[in-house]
């Protein structure tokens, strides 16, 4: 084969083009060195070879390549590193978000180095107030009866209450901000999902037209990286047949299947499937009405007699029904009436999960205008308290629902083919022709339909291809389906550690309508903002309860007998022991009247102590009780001359003495205490009197001792967890130690999270560097390319000049004689 006269020019021209293209790619790389997500590009070149043999070619013909072709531009990327980077970045995102929130909590609760900077005395704030209150009580023991010293105790208490209120308010503000942030994050993630879906569509279109759309891929990769930080995802690419033998790549993004519970499948929900994309959202539920002790219609449950009750423990229970139950279904899950505790349908009522029966006559929800209603539909819709997420069905940019296609090919008989083609005129009634492509109606429940295609091959074989089309569905996510920053946000908003509702831990209550429908066995060790709010509540509540209890009682004599006022023979007021007559029998069974004197030293309201009372005394108390069954010794003393002293030091409102439902946000010095001295110095009357000696400080010392006494703290002893959280000791110590423990727990969590974050951050950086080593632009590389393409260009031009010179010689110089 020989080359045409101007073939060599073409060779030089191609070389010039290639060098120019190379220079352009290099220029593009240099230009985008700072573009986030940019993947360096490379010019793909091929040596041009014109193939085929000449009919009369000689074996001595030389076959020389005819230049260079620029075949395309490709990206340099390592998918394995992308996977590793996204895995790591999800964990990093989770820790980063968690640490961010914990640091915010620490700004409120961590008192290290805080406090009055008097000679370097960093005694904290609440810590110092607790110590102040104890010291003021100690001082009051020496200065009993002097109002200014009582005032000092009160001043410490006022300061303590103010700090607890302030901390609680700031924690609530943090919580509210986190809710807002989570809602915005969900919205941002949705915008990324939409962008990825739309980019997929554009890339697909470009690919169909033979273009790689590398820049769009870069943009998509940046979005995927961002998404991976929020939620651990599994990214894969498959080929999609677009007809005519053409295939394009299709991106599929799914959740990475992180739920440790293997029975859960929602942790692999699809977020993106090619041109279809989903959206995530926080479940909305009717706004629950706050429980009002005075209004039974607000009580959420009812007991077995149908009477409203406040506590879930008192409520009657009913089996959890299968929401998909179909009475007409012959078999399958929908034929089973109940759900077990794992959410699996069952027909056996004994295996069914149970839930408390809701108050049928209650008005348990709030409408948007704030009025009560029992219709969930009418109620204002608010975020699910557990911030349950759901992944929507997949839709394309025109809102068209995605259907998954299952293809099944079977052989069919000629008769079937014929029937599909022509119908059956002999049938009674005759079956009309449905055509060779038949589409079934959609199942009203599942939305599934089929397309059946009948075909006859060239060889005369008949086949039937059934395409089953299953619509994409919304997927409610389990509590532990996600890993990443979004999950951290949820956990910071919901996790309450030891205060967790035990039904969440045990998964006893698999109620589809319950916000905590999924069991989370690890919930007891996860601590978010609610944990710290409730810890603060617990401290405030116990402090108030213990001190209030110690500051109320009945006067007694020095022998511990509760007394009433009486007079001696001279008419002077004296204390007389209070007793009750009761009927009993002597050793021989003869009825006699005995007398029981109530002595101090025991808490009669304690059921164990109450049980120690002689039955006859209890019977006697029951006889005189206004509400039999609720009688207590305290009630008896109250109505039978007992001399009551003291009152609540703390209340839930500074304008009252109400000590119910005290939390950190409402704890106040009671109205009575705010008006004047209220601390009872002693419940022991002076000799023969009904009042304590003026300087007797027995009870003040006891109050002071309460600050040094270690006690058990139970997570179910605050209003929001009573009857719900476990009754296990979560801490044993003094009030101060309890407060210290809050800081310690927070600090430890911060430290562990910080260490993990650092580890994940370093890992991510290393992987990112490795990724950059493949994909990032480097000045040295590009400088080499510049030189290389510049020289190539020069050489190609020189080639053209040389060929031109040669041709000039050939055309103008050959055969010329002088």
């Amino acid at each position, binding site marked *: 084969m020989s080359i045409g006269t101007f073939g060599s020019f073409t060779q030089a021209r191609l070389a010039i083009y290639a060098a120019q293209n190379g220079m352009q790619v290099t220029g593009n790389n240099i230009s985008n060195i700072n573009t986030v997500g940019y993947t360096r590009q490379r010019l793909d070149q091929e040596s041009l070879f014109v193939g085929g043999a000449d009919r009369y070619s000689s074996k001595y013909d030389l076959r020389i390549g005819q230049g260079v072709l620029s075949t395309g531009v490709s990206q340099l990327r390592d998918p394995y590193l992308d996977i590793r980077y996204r895995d790591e970045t999800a964990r990093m995102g989770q820790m980063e978000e968690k640490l961010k929130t914990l640091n915010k909590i620490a700004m409120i609760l961590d008192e*290290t180095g805080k406090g009055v900077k008097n000679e370097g005395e960093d005694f904290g704030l609440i810590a110092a107030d607790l110590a102040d209150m104890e010291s003021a009580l100690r001082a009051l023991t020496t200065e009993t009866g002097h109002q200014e010293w009582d005032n000092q105790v009160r001043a410490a208490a006022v300061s303590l209450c103010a700090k607890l209120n302030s901390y609680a308010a700031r924690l609530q503000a943090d919580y509210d901000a986190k809710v807002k942030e989570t809602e915005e994050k969900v919205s941002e993630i949705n915008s990324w999902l939409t962008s990825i879906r739309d980019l997929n569509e554009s890339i697909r279109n470009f690919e169909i037209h033979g273009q790689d759309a590398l820049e769009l891929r870069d943009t998509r990769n940046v979005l995927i990286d961002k998404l991976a930080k929020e939620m651990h995802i599994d990214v894969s690419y498959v080929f999609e047949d677009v007809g005519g033998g053409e295939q394009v790549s299709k991106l599929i993004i799914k959740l990475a299947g992180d739920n440790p519970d293997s029975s859960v499948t929602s942790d692999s929900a699809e977020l993106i499937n090619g041109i279809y994309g989903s959206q995530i959202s926080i479940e909305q539920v009717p706004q629950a009405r706050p429980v009002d002790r005075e209004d039974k219609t607000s009580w959420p449950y009812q007991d077995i007699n149908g009477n409203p009750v406040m506590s879930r423990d008192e409520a009657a229970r009913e089996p959890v029904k299968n929401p998909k139950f179909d009475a007409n279904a012959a078999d399958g899950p929908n034929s089973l009436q109940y759900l077990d505790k794992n959410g699996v349908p069952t027909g056996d009522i004994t295996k069914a999960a149970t839930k408390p029966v809701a108050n049928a006559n209650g008005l348990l929800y709030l409408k948007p205008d704030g009025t009560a209603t029992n219709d969930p539909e009418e109620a204002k819709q608010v975020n699910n308290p557990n911030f349950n997420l759901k992944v929507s069905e997949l839709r394309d940019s025109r809102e068209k629902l995605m259907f998954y296609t299952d293809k099944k090919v079977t052989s069919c008989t000629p008769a079937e083919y014929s029937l599909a083609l022509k119908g059956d005129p002999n049938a009674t009634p005759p079956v009309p022709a449905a055509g060779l492509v038949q589409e079934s109606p959609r199942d009203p429940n599942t939305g599934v339909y089929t397309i059946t295609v009948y075909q006859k091959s060239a060889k005369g074989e008949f086949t039937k291809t059934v395409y089953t089309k299953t619509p994409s569905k919304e997927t409610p996510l389990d509590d532990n389906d996600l890993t990443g920053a979004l999950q951290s946000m949820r956990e910071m908003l919901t996790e309450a550690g030891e205060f967790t509702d035990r039904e969440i831990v045990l998964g006893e209550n698999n109620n589809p309508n319950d916000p905590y429908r999924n069991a989370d066995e690890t919930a007891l060790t996860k601590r978010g903002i609610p944990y710290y709010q409730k810890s603060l509540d617990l401290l405030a509540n116990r402090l108030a309860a213990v001190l209030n209890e110690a500051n109320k009682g009945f006067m007694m004599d020095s022998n511990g007998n509760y007394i009433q006022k009486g007079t001696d023979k001279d008419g002077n007021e004296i204390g007389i022991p209070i007793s009750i007559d009761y009927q009993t029998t002597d050793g021989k069974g003869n009825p006699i009247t005995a007398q029981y004197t109530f002595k101090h030293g025991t808490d009669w309201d304690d059921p164990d102590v109450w049980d120690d009372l002689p039955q006859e005394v209890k019977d006697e108390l029951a006889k005189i009780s206004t509400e039999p069954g609720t009688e207590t010794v305290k009630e008896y003393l109250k109505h039978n001359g007992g001399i009551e002293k003291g009152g609540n030091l703390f209340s839930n409102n500074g304008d009252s003495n109400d000590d119910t439902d005290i939390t950190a946000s409402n704890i106040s010095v009671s109205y009575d205490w705010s008006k004047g001295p209220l601390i009872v110095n002693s419940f022991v009357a002076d000799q023969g009197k009904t009042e304590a000696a003026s300087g007797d400080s027995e009870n003040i010392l006891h109050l002071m001792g309460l600050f040094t006494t270690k006690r058990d703290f139970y997570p179910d002893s605050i209003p929001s967890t009573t009857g719900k959280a476990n009754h296990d000791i979560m801490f044993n110590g003094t009030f101060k130690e309890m407060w210290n423990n809050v800081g310690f727990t927070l600090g430890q969590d911060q430290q562990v999270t910080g260490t993990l974050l650092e580890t994940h951050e370093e890992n991510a950086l290393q992987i990112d560097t490795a990724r950059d080593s493949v994909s990032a632009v480097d000045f040295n590389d590009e400088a080499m390319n510049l030189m290389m393409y510049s020289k190539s260009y020069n050489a190609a031009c020189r080639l053209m000049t040389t060929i031109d010179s040669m041709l000039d010689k050939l055309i103008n110089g050959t055969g010329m004689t002088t």
Partner: protein
Amino acid sequence: MITRTTTIGSLKNYRYNLNNSMTTMSTSMGKITTGRNFNSFAESPSAAAQAFQLRHAYLRTASQHSANTQLVHKYEVAWSALDNVEKDIDTINNSGFFNLIRAENGADASARNALGQDMSAKAKSIVQTMNGRYGENYIFSGADTLNVPLTWGPQYNPDYVEDPKDPVHYMYEALPGQGEDSTGKYTNDINKAAFTEIDNPAYIKAKEEFQQAQDEGRNDVPNPDDPATCPQIPQKITQYTLNESYNENASYKYIKSATKIDGEWKGEFTDNASEANQVLYYRGVPVDSMAEADKSKLDYYTDEERKFIDIGLGYKEKDGSVVSSSVQNSALQAVYYLGGHGTKERTVKMDPNDPNSKEYTIEVPVNMASVMSRLGTIMQNCDPDDGSFASEEEEAEFYALAEQYEETASLVKQRYTELDTTSSFLKDNVELLEDNANNLQDQFLGIEDVDPAAAISDFMFARYAYDTALKIGNSLLSQSLMDYMSF
């Protein structure tokens, strides 16, 4: 294959490391400027928790120190008061004791009037001293610190009954609701009350059987004294005991000038409070009262009443009551430090050398202020000319009181020493608390405070590292092949 190092990769790494370097420097700087090893729980949870615990212990110790110091001051004032009292009672010159010696001496008998006046004045003086206050609190009023402990008031007739004809008044301490009838029910009505039938043979037999069973360790025989288990046996009801000492004087409310001699009150009674003999009261209870109810109250004050203060002895409660060894009792009872309360029978022989000399058994007060007061009265009753006693009974009473004076003076001295010992202990405890507080401070500062040398050298190193990182950054950004290309 060698990893390809890229400009972007280098920049990312550099940014991360530069940030770390700056954070390290910032942390080092923070340690120097705050002087603390850590500024949050997160930096060192266990150290922060430990430091807070120690700081709280420090505050508690400081508060205990304050309470203890206050108590020391109270005891110092108390000690000073008792020192004065002691001087009034028992020094060689110008004391009650001195007056007594002189009054006993027949040669100085004519001065008995004057000595009596001085003795009465001294009695009043020690009462005033014991009524002293520390700050706003009475020192010697036990737990009743806001009320004056010792007062003078009329001497009540212990046998007084409002209406002597009412049979209830024949009973001793028949308080409302304390009697029982034969069925075991409580009553105030004497006519319904069951009476002791201790001579009933059935009771005696049952009592013997019960006692025998008890001695043998058996519980199968009912106690005849318990109406609940033994209702059919005539009961020994202790609540109602006939007041056999009732006499006609019982119609007078006050004693004008009477002494209980040989078991009988001798002297004058009155219904007029202003005429009544003035006796010492402690917190509203007559100090020299012979009535059981009064004695019981005073016994409680002196033996059982406590006003505890937490001075760092390891405050502890058990079964709802404070463990007394874990706190300090600060209740000082005037009646105790003045020798006690109540009366004592003393037998006096008018002439100790004469075996046939007349003897008197006299109830004399025990408390020093009462003794001095009564001595003063008797001495002032003496004849102003020759100093002879107003009567033989008064003379006998004088000697009985003189004996009691010596006994009580010894007791007062002993209790004064007790107070001194407690005071010393409290002072020692103050020092101990100071040491504790210092130790605690050393401990938490040891945990919290930075070692300046280490902190500064750490900071210097961190700063060098940061400066170097900056220089590297400058080189990293300026150098590449691009800078050397020339066309």
